[in-house]
């Protein structure tokens, strides 16, 4: 009898090209899909050229431009070379590198351009059972399809370009089970913030999360991507969800998904990927979705999250080891221990990023904003995750809802998630953001971020303060 296997173990085994020759050595792991963008790839191409090596499998790699591109619709590429010459040069380099090595690229202004983790799934490139890597930590997003997907450094980007393989040590497994049914107003973002608040930002280190349970099964594919996206914020190498009917329905007829007879064969194969009964994980965490509320962060890492109705923790009540970090975070955020987070005034609302910029995120926020106004003291940016999301939103009039409410309707990109372009918070400004990182200065030097769901973001935009969306549902 063979030992029952987890989803992760099956995907790992399928891609093991050369197992470790002796204990402690890495496995040579085959990579099915490699995503690249302008920021973490130039030095990798240089490494290739220094070694006089070609890109081995150019059609298993695909590029986009997302991190530093402007999202102000009035900025042309020519203008951008003037506004930000250094960032612009990096974009030119990606154009040249892809051209020279025959790597497909959805570049500036192209129909399929978008945040790398939004673009790949919507094109059907992301598929169950794949190994997927990108020089970007939120590659964990693609695990929503039952892929083993993880972020890599630039040296490794070079390794994949040259060999379509990576040297990897096998991570451990960690089941994150969320039972029960989430109440209205409690979204995928709230589930994952609750997981990280409970398990800590380092709790998943060296592990792959597999999300299971009723509340996970009930999520749409876009919700599952939100959950898997933030696995890295819990320290995990990747996050995975076994493919099911929702996965297949999402992928059917996407441009790069298998078609015709190949589709049937693929689905039959994908159905064999799920974790078998009796398989064990190295660690486990169980939550009940029914007990969760909308979550929001108050500090400077995503684990510093509380229910929106809760008060800001007091460093004096923390264990010694945790106290200095919390004091430092509250000092940076200029928040008082013991104060409620609800009704905290805000300056900016950012609806975007690879966590929450898909069509359903925009639609959820637009439903709340329809016929209402963004508070007069608040600037709201709506940044669709991809050109495709943007077109679909415009076809359905969402952009008119946002504009009528007084929000800015932008081009697709990472934007204020990492503030590499001119979308930034000013020093001391508070923002409710649907992105994934509230690190010091992440959204602009001195900027202060509250991470929350698109619903909480929209409700807060209207109120001009941190709001509990359940009050207006």
């Amino acid at each position, binding site marked *: 009898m063979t030992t029952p296997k987890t989803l992760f173990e099956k995907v790992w085994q399928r891609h093991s*090209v*050369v197992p470790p020759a*002796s204990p402690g*050595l890495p496995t*040579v792991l*085959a990579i099915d*899909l490699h995503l690249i963008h302008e920021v*973490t790839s*130039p*030095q990798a191409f240089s490494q290739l050229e220094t*070694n006089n090596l070609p890109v081995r*499998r150019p*059609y*298993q790699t695909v590029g986009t431009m997302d*991190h*530093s591109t402007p999202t102000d619709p009035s900025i042309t590429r020519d203008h951008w070379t003037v506004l*930000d010459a*250094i*960032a612009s*040069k*990096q974009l030119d380099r990606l154009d040249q590198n892809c051209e020279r090595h025959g790597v*497909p690229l*959805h570049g500036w202004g192209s*129909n*399929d351009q978008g945040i790398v983790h939004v673009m790949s799934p*919507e094109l059907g*490139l992301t598929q169950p059972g*794949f190994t997927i890597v990108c*020089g*970007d930590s939120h590659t964990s997003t693609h695990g929503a399809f039952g892929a083993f997907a993880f*972020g890599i*450094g630039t*040296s490794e980007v070079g390794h994949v370009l*040259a*060999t*379509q*393989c990576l*040297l990897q040590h096998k991570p451990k497994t960690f089941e994150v089970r969320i039972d029960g049914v989430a109440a209205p107003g409690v979204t995928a973002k709230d589930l994952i913030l609750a997981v990280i608040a409970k398990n800590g*930002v*380092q709790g998943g*280190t*060296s592990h792959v999360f597999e999300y299971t349970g009723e509340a996970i099964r009930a999520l749409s594919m876009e919700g599952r991507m939100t959950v898997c996206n933030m696995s890295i*914020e819990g*320290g995990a190498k990747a996050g995975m969800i076994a493919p099911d009917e929702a996965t297949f329905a999402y992928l059917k007829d*996407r*441009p*790069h998904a298998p078609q015709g007879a190949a589709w049937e064969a693929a689905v039959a194969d994908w159905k064999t990927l799920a974790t078998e009964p009796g398989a064990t994980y190295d660690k486990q965490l169980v939550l009940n979705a029914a007990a969760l509320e909308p979550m929001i962060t108050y500090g400077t*890492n995503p684990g510093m999250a509380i229910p929106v109705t809760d008060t800001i923790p007091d460093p004096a009540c923390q264990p010694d080891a945790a106290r*200095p*970090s919390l004091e430092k975070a509250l000092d940076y955020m200029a928040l008082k221990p013991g104060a409620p987070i609800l009704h905290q005034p805000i300056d900016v609302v950012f609806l975007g990023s690879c966590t929450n910029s898909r069509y359903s995120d925009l639609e959820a926020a637009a439903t709340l904003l329809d016929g209402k106004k963004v508070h007069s003291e608040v600037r709201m940016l709506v940044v669709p995750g991809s050109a*495709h999301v943007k077109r679909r939103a415009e076809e359905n009039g969402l952009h008119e809802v946002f504009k009528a409410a007084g929000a800015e309707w932008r081009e697709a990109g990472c934007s204020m998630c*990492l*503030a*590499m372009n001119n979308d930034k918070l000013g020093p001391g400004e508070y923002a409710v953001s649907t992105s994934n*990182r509230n*690190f*010091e*200065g*992440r959204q602009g*030097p001195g900027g202060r971020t509250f991470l929350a769901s698109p619903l909480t973001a929209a409700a807060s935009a209207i109120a001009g303060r941190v709001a509990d969306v359940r009050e207006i549902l």
Partner: protein
Amino acid sequence: MEQFAQLTSTLAPLPIQDIDTDQIIPARYLKITSREGLAEGLFSNWNDDPNFVLNVEHYKAAKILLAGNNFGCGSSREHAPWALLDHGFRAVISTRFADIFRGNSLKNGLLPVTVDQPTWHWLLEACERDPSTEVSIDLETCTLQLPEGSGIAPVGFEVDPLAKSCMLRGTDQFGYLLEHLPQIKAWVAEHPAPVDTRPIKSA
């Protein structure tokens, strides 16, 4: 990458937990297309503070950073180890490193040394009390030698065997991977590419 065998140095203490790679090097420094010159951006969010450890005269020359738990979490940017190396650090000691940062560091000759809580506390106290306190790292034997008189025996740490041999020789892991190209080619012959990224039609 520079060879790493032994290192004797003072320590720069940065006892904050969960220092993410955005703090090590903020995104605005990532627009470059080379690996050089990143020291300028190292910890630049904190650099204006005259009390920040790298602004304190007697910690400036330290080649070892003593950092809080879960160092290097967040973004996968390899610019983080590049910036630490460019500043002159050759090793970081912590009680835990985030996975991607750890891998990136080992590929560039920056040694992550994981120690237990008591050792970490001892080091912190020692370098805060006397900034001239030196420790020695021996990669061959994977030991951290505390100063004479500390009364503490050399502390062992773990480095995976491939990363260790690469660092000792000053070669990167790329060569090791390339040695496997024949096996990779044989595998690929039996496993056709499951995807073709060339544009088909607009989604």
